[in-house]
């Protein structure tokens, strides 16, 4: 086992532990903070798997922007009513069952795959090559994503308006 495998398994353990903690916390703020740790771990994994550019994007967009958005909304809601006081098996039973069945199916699919035991080779792509590739081969998808982001912005503005302000603007 070389040093890269050690880094991979340590990062995998970190991501899994942080995600398990995130989905079992009662307060949403705590789970958002654990999720930041999980996404920083995935950024390390992206770096290991050969893309420093996507690792930086993961830190900036996921761990930075998206999680801060979650934190703002959790603070705006002030909705920690203690609505999940207990550990209701009525909800967790089916959830764990579905998760376990799905995980078993994934395990069967992965371990019957002939390319499963193939070791991954180290490689790295520079941001320049990556940008050239994306804008030459997938320029249409980039345009579609930008349109999607614009529509998301419009929808967020429209839905997030206060009721009174809308009527005031219309009247």
């Amino acid at each position, binding site marked *: 086992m*070389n040093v*890269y495998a050690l880094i*991979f*398994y340590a990062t*995998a353990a970190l991501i*899994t532990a942080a*995600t398990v903690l*995130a*989905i079992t916390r009662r307060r*949403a703020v705590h*789970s*958002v903070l654990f*999720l930041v740790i*999980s996404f920083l771990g*995935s950024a390390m*994994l*992206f770096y290991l*798997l050969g*893309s420093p550019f*996507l690792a930086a994007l*993961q830190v900036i*967009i*996921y761990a930075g922007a*998206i999680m801060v*958005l*979650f934190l703002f909304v959790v603070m705006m*809601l002030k909705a920690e009513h203690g609505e*999940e006081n207990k550990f*209701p098996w009525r*909800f*967790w039973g089916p*959830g764990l069952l*579905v*998760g376990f069945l*799905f*995980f078993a199916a*994934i*395990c069967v699919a*992965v*371990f019957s*795959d002939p*390319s*499963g*035991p*193939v*070791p*991954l*080779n*180290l490689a790295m*792509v520079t941001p320049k*090559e*990556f940008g050239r*590739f994306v804008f030459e*081969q997938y320029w249409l*998808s980039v345009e579609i*994503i930008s349109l999607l982001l614009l529509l*998301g912005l419009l929808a*967020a503005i429209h839905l*997030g308006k206060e*009721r009174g302000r809308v009527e005031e603007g219309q009247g």
Partner: protein
Amino acid sequence: MIVPYGHVLSLAGIIFCLGLVCVVARRNLIMILIGVEIMLNGAAIAFMGSGLLWQRLEGQAFVLFILGIAATEVSVGLALVLHAYRRSGSVDPDTYNVLKG
């Protein structure tokens, strides 16, 4: 060489299943959105591993698109959560049982 390809896929599967459990089991709209984020993250890890296995850039390009889609989904989803919270005063999905315009 790093690790066998199957281990990366197994990690992605574990992350995806944790997100699925979060979506099914939690009774809080914020936690459901967080579960969707975790599932998207698992898919991104699988794409990165596959791109490295075949030494192609398509996997990383799709991770970039997943980032954009996740950002859009979170902004619209959180705006919807705020909208529903203003109407009903709760983020528990079980309380949304009135169809009224």
